[in-house]
């Protein structure tokens, strides 16, 4: 029963991802790729449990390595995405849009 609910969650979330990402403009494809890469660091959640749990020494060591790797992925992934997005300058774009709208609104 629990697994059926998980399946629902998985399918619904996949659908959300599908619908949302289909609309990403080409302008943002690279940042999006790097953002999803950062999100893949979510295995950090599992890694933390493995490193902190009472699963024996080997597990703690493996867990520790997992935490390091996942944290690297998360930190690097989000930072690079932020660096990239910070470079996108929207100033004139916004102006251009305003212009277009003004033209549309003119009698």
């Amino acid at each position, binding site marked *: 029963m629990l697994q059926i609910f998980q399946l629902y969650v998985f399918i619904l979330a996949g659908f959300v991802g599908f619908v*949302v990402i289909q609309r990403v403009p080409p302008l943002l494809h690279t940042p999006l790729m790097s953002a999803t890469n950062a999100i893949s660091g979510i295995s950090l959640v599992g890694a933390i449990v493995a490193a*902190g749990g009472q699963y024996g020494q080997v597990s703690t060591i493996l867990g520790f390595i997992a935490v390091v790797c996942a944290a690297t992925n998360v930190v690097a992934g989000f930072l690079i995405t932020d660096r990239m997005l910070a470079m996108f300058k929207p100033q004139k774009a916004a102006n251009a849009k305003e212009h277009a709208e003004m033209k549309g609104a003119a009698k």
Partner: protein
Amino acid sequence: MSELGPLSSRDLIIQATYLLASIFFILGLRSLTRPTQARLGMQQAAMGMLFAVIGTLLNAHIVTYQWIIIGLAVGAIIGYPMAMKVPMTAMPQFIAFSHAFGAIAATLVGVVEYRHAFTIDMSGTMTGMSSGIAAAVGFEVLFGALTVTGSFMAFGKLQELIRGQPITFPGQNAFNITLIAVAFLSLGVLIYDPGATWAFYTVLALGFFLGISMVLPIGGGDMPVVISLLNSYAGLAASATGFAIGNNVLIIAGALEGAGGFILSLIMSKAMNRSFANIVFGAFGSAPAASTKEGGPVKEPKTITAEDAATQLAYAGSVVIIPGYGMAVAQAQHTCRELHELIEKKGGKVSYAIHPVAGRMPGHLNVILSEAGIDYGALLTDVDDANRVLLTADVVVIVGANDIVNPDAEDDKSSPLYGMPIFRPWTAKVSFVIKRGKGTGFSGVENPLFTKDNTLMIYGDGKSVIGNLVKEIKALDEGH
């Protein structure tokens, strides 16, 4: 690792935190689809990650925080300089590299899970594992391991540590298919008998092996598609982890990532005119071979000096710049911006036509140009729009682009590029092509654009040629 049953108030807090994390991930992804909100979206996703970590730290199964904290610190110390130093041109290999790290974590977690279930614990018993959980853990290590080695291979190819050319041997596809079949068979055994340790480690080992053997035969230029697909696989691995440990954040984040990576590879494949199957089956096969079109006597491209080109640019009313992979290689974006500003000062209008697959990852040139401070209002990212603008352009400057302006994509059914939407610079008055020599583009085919009557070549490195153009235009002014 919460089981079913009534919830303690601690569990309730954990669950609320997880729910919040999931909502942040979704909202973040949504914001990421709008240029003006993209940065906010990234921050929301990061918040999601933060909440997911906080929720996990509250987990009652955690007895010692020491290694967790050290691990997080080490990760941050490694990640920070990595992200800050990497040049924007190296984005694809960077993503591949960082990605391999996440996949290592997912794989290790799977191993810990499995080991834990089948190790005799202090009380002398073994918890074991249901078939459902075994299936989840099996998928997790299969996709995780595949992503680890696959990402490293992609990184190696892009960084040119490994030969970029497809590395093939006869019967390769049959070999890979056999490997996949064996992996899924072992997975089947594992599900049937979760205690079959050998099956688990076979799945793990084959995962590692498959990552190598599936990426080896793929050309270096195809790596972005591979990376995107590996992204999708990593998402599936994360979702599988979520199924295994009963954690919805993992399931949701993984599903979002899985869908995202999949759609991006679809978009890329479409823009590159490769078949869907080509992508779904791990971009099997190699880059298209060079076309063997035999024509009449080959026309020689005409050239133009930087001085003459500069004069025409200085008096052009409308200039379109088409950057390609070579612009990224030459790091010519900053010089390009100088040129752009010079032309605008002289009264010309400059816009950029950015092809969806220009460069080596989708949207790559948008990032490169943004790095140089060019605002995205000047970028034409739609091929049809750009072609309309090209119709009335006075001068087109093609910098290190090749395949994306190859007319064979429209005219020659035998060309491997046939069917790919391209820019039509020849509809403008005149085009200047800046490239180092007679090198072909990623696809390896010749480009008849270069021998058209209104196409003029300027050979040389992108950055230095544009630098010369800038100098010459400035000299014009002083000459007056």
